[in-house]
């Protein structure tokens, strides 16, 4: 293991395939992760709000969505899309789309739960106060509740975002041309597994670590007590 790690010849072989295999894979992973994150956030907000409404059928739909996707493995879901969607729609589904809907829907369910608990944690008085001021439901949510929710849910939300990035690697199993696929492919081709997987891990780290730092920064900023702006012209 240590001998393999320090083998210069193997590292030379790796740097030869870095621009041709790893970088394109990295770009695919980045794209899938970004689009997947947007989809997951959208689904999370929609279903998170649905599960806090007073309308029973909405809550029911949200429950079914969350429970189903939270309690089945992502790999099964993605394999299902890959193997069964072509029969349903009668054509091939691009790997990018498979990846985005795979991680998007899966993490959307988790994010929906994060948002639901966030909304429920905002005191009821906030809703009542907003309604008494003439805000409708959506306005109440958008201007009053969700901004307060955001502060509380940032840490668990970051967890979900990071997991989403890492979970895009499931694409490797269906030849998704992502980072893990290329690393795995080259690794098993040459047998240089240390050189194949270690840089692959570093590249995932390169996406996740800044994301984690950003979230931490936002969290700290959000926790600061708001200071009212000084009105102009007052001595």
């Amino acid at each position, binding site marked *: 293991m240590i001998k393999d790690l320090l083998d210069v010849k193997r590292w030379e072989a790796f740097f030869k395939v870095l621009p041709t295999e790893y970088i394109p894979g990295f770009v695919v992973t980045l794209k899938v992760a970004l689009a997947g994150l947007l989809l997951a956030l959208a689904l999370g907000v929609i279903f998170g709000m649905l599960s806090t409404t007073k309308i029973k059928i909405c809550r029911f739909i949200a429950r079914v969505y969350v429970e189903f996707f939270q309690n089945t493995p992502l790999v099964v879901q993605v394999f299902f899309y*890959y*193997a*069964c969607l*072509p*029969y349903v729609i009668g054509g*091939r589904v691009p790997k990018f789309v498979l990846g985005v809907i795979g991680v998007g829907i899966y993490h959307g369910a988790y994010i929906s739960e994060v948002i639901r608990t966030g909304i429920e944690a905002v005191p009821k008085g906030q809703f009542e106060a907003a309604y008494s001021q003439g805000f409708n439901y959506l306005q109440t949510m958008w201007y009053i509740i969700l901004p307060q929710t955001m502060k509380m849910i940032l840490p668990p939300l970051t967890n979900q975002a990071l997991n989403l990035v890492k979970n895009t690697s499931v694409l490797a*199993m*269906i*030849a998704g*041309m992502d980072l893990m*696929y290329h690393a*795995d*492919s080259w690794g*098993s*081709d*040459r*047998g*240089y*597994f240390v050189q194949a997987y270690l840089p692959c891990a570093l590249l995932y780290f390169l996406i996740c670590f800044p994301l984690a730092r950003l979230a931490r920064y936002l969290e700290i900023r959000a926790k600061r007590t708001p200071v009212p702006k000084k009105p102009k012209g007052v001595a």
Partner: protein
Amino acid sequence: MKKSSMKASALMMAAAMMVSAALTGCGGSGSAATTAAADTTAAADGAVTADVQKIIDAGVLKVGTKVDVPKFGMQNTATGEMEGVEVDLAYEIAGKIFGCTAEEAKAKKLVAFQGVTAKTRGPLIDNGEVDMVIATYTITPERKETWNFSDPYYTDAVGLLVLKDSGIKSIEDLDGKVIAVSQGSTTKKVMMEYIAEKGFNVTPEFEEFDGYPSMAAALSAKNVDVFSVDRAILAGYNDDSTEILPDRFAEQDYGVATKLDNKGLADLVNGVVNDLKSSGKMDEMLKGWGIE
């Protein structure tokens, strides 16, 4: 110069001794060979290398074979037994190591089989999980840098499996088509070489999968157009809805792979393979399984 030629002659002598030992030892299944086996095997020679001794001490030879390739390495679902020409070859090698015939090795269960895939076979050798891999493993110069390979015991070619209703009739119809190949296999490389060599104006796309069942599933869902691996393996996945195209290209040699450090074991294995080939037993074994 002098030194190297001395080294070479010493090697040749060693090889010659190995072959002669193998010939009198476990080569044939005849009774004369059986009686001689006990005293002329590797175990009795006193010339056992440390890596071989380790296997003798363990009392069992751990071999990685395919479990889903008919005629080569296949698990009989009824009995749970491993069957195929590569399984027989494993018993021949075990016989040589433990000083008995292949039949005795089989009866005494001296070989522990482990299923491998194109993807897992390399790492399993390296981490010592198996002593050797006999699993339709193509010999390539790159792989020889990472593992020891014996001389080839069989030469196969790459084949193309398509759905009958796909309209694909030959490799020249593959422009823009998606070809499923096995991860850790040579198929992609050799097919590109063949296309370039023949000057076909086709640029197929390749997708790699870990394991043949997922490739077969991808083909039947039409996620890929072609399922391409060695013909020996392909035969196991051909059914009513599919056909193997007549194209036959990129002949490739299968060898027995061992860990790079285990030179002694590699020499021994090579001796067995060469002996089986020169005595005609290898051809018999292949014929016995209906392999051309």
